[in-house]
């Protein structure tokens, strides 16, 4: 349905990772000064009743209530001017939605359905922050207050009643989840990172974020190990001490560029003999592989390589995408339920103060 040019309208205008290429998103992204400038201009623009600005690395979106559909186009022009985009350029990549569609879009954004990584939770915090700022600066009124409150409820419902946020989708976090299913609490586990490469360190950091605080980095070159250990706040060790290190470690993430196996099945077997009932989780992040596949046959040893972790991550992502369709249906219903509460404020001739007729 086209936007009514003469009557009040709830609108969304902006650009997201779905509509705008990276170079344009870079141009559109607003730093603090530009955001303040934009807000000041919008407040001064005739026809603007309420607004909130959602500004993240993947989207710049202006949610608002305008006294007429006609006024919305002038807001887009203001956005173009502040960001330095050509009006035509912005028009080509921008999202412009109103009423039902704008509410549904906000619901989907807050629930993580419109994110690059479907189901991610960070966006909800960003939407909350955008609303808090708008509330503090008194940019929002009865319509957006209601819409945002309902947005948070809808997003919470989606997170708790669907599987859209379940299952990790990066290699490192999948490994952390698996470790949780082996050891439970990770705070008491000892992590051994073999190789000072980026992927190993990222994995170590993912473990740290889940409470692991005993990290040792082992490398052929001790200086490299020291450098990497400093980044993780862990200890450095030489690869020559690997048998002893293996016996003490619970989780081993290996990512060297060695052409032969760094951890042989015999080494893992020897390590297991000194560990009693404690399992050993071997994460092979290297190509060619660092861990001899026969190590997986040992009792209480769990070996996962890059392919295994990628398969799990892809499976989780596919599951999230499948769940997204179910979520969209729920959100459409919620929009329909919310609309009668908002509509009375958007009647012809309304000045934005009519109490809702619910």
């Amino acid at each position, binding site marked *: 349905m086209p936007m009514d040019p003469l009557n009040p309208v709830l609108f969304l205008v902006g650009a997201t990772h779905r509509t705008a290429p990276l170079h344009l998103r870079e141009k559109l992204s607003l730093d603090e000064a530009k955001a303040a400038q934009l807000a000041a201009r919008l407040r001064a623009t005739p026809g603007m009743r309420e607004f909130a600005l959602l500004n993240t690395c993947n989207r710049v979106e202006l949610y608002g209530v305008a006294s007429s559909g006609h006024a919305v186009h002038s807001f887009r022009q203001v956005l173009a001017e502040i960001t330095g985009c050509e009006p035509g350029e912005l028009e080509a990549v921008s999202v412009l939605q109103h009423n039902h569609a704008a509410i549904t879009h906000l619901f989907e954004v807050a629930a993580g359905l419109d994110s690059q990584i479907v189901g991610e939770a960070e966006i909800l915090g960003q939407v909350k922050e955008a609303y808090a700022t708008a509330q503090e600066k008194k940019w929002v009124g009865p319509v957006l207050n209601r819409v945002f409150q309902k947005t948070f409820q809808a997003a919470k419902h989606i997170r708790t009643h669907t*599987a859209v946020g*379940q299952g990790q989708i990066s290699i490192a976090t999948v490994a952390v989840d*698996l470790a*949780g*299913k*082996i*050891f*439970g609490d990770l705070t008491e586990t000892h992590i051994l990172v073999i190789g000072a490469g980026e992927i190993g360190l990222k994995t170590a950091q993912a473990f740290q974020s889940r409470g692991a605080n005993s990290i040792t980095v082992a490398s052929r070159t001790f200086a490299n190990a020291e450098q990497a250990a400093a980044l993780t706040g862990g200890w450095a060790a030489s690869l020559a001490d690997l048998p002893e290190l293996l016996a003490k470690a619970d989780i081993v993430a290996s990512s060297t560029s060695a052409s032969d196996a760094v951890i042989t099945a015999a080494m893992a077997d020897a390590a297991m003999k000194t560990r*009693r*009932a*404690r*399992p050993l989780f071997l994460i092979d992040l290297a190509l060619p592989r660092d861990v001899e596949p026969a190590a*997986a046959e040992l*009792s*209480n040893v*769990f070996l*996962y390589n890059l392919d*295994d972790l990628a*398969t*799990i991550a892809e499976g989780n992502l596919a599951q999230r995408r499948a769940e997204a369709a179910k979520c969209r249906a729920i959100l459409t219903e919620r929009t329909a339920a919310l609309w009668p509460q908002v509509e009375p404020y958007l009647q012809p001739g309304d000045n934005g103060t009519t109490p809702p007729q619910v």
Partner: protein
Amino acid sequence: MSTLLSDRTLLWIGALLYLAGFAIGCLTLAWRKNSGAPHAILKTLLTGGLFFQTTGLYVRGIAVGGCPLGNTFELFQFVAWSAMVLYFIVGSAFRVSLLGLFTAGYAAALAFISLLVPQWDLVRGLKIFGQNPWIEFHAALAVFSYGVFGLLAITSSMHLLQTASLKNKQLDGLFWFLPSVVQLDQINFRLLLAGVALLTLSLSVGAAWWVRNTESVDVAKLTVTVSIWLAYLATLLLRGRGRLVSVRFAWVCIVLFALALLSLQPVNASRHLTAPVPAAR
């Protein structure tokens, strides 16, 4: 309630509630929900099941004038009851997700098997405790330890499932709902310790009376009971020394319990003096 419902009817209701709890738990898993209302329903059903089973056993106890452990039916019911009581005592302390579901399935299976084999409840041992409360205590404690070993077999099965999922990289189904391998291993060790302690105490009490009258105990029963105790004790020692761990430890716990359970019926049948079950049923 005893005048309105017979002991067997009460035990049937208890078994049905356990089964309903198990079914609700399975449906909850299928819907991928592990908290909230379904969890409360499961708890309520298990509480109801335990109430009816306890009442049923109490009514039977009043009728037979002692702890109802006189035939295979009563023994199976008592083992199922012990496992459920233990679940309510230790389940919350261990915070093991799905333990309620597994215990419900296990208790329902034992209760239904005992109820569906009428021959097990036609006759019962006559004066099996010889009016001696210590012998009664010894017997109740021994069967209660079987309840602990039953729960151990459940957590061992959970351990095997979790390990198999991780080894085979089959991470669907119950995997994300089950506790971690290490957590299950620790629980198994503690349950084994508790079971062995209870059985040791029970056998000590029994032995104190047995030495005064060695003919009072059937040889087959004595041999089987002591063998089971020794097997569990050996398992505990091997586990403590780190010689029997992980999957092998879990398998041993399951096999030992299966043997212990299977021995109940023949051992019970070897008793000489029996009488029809009193008419209170």
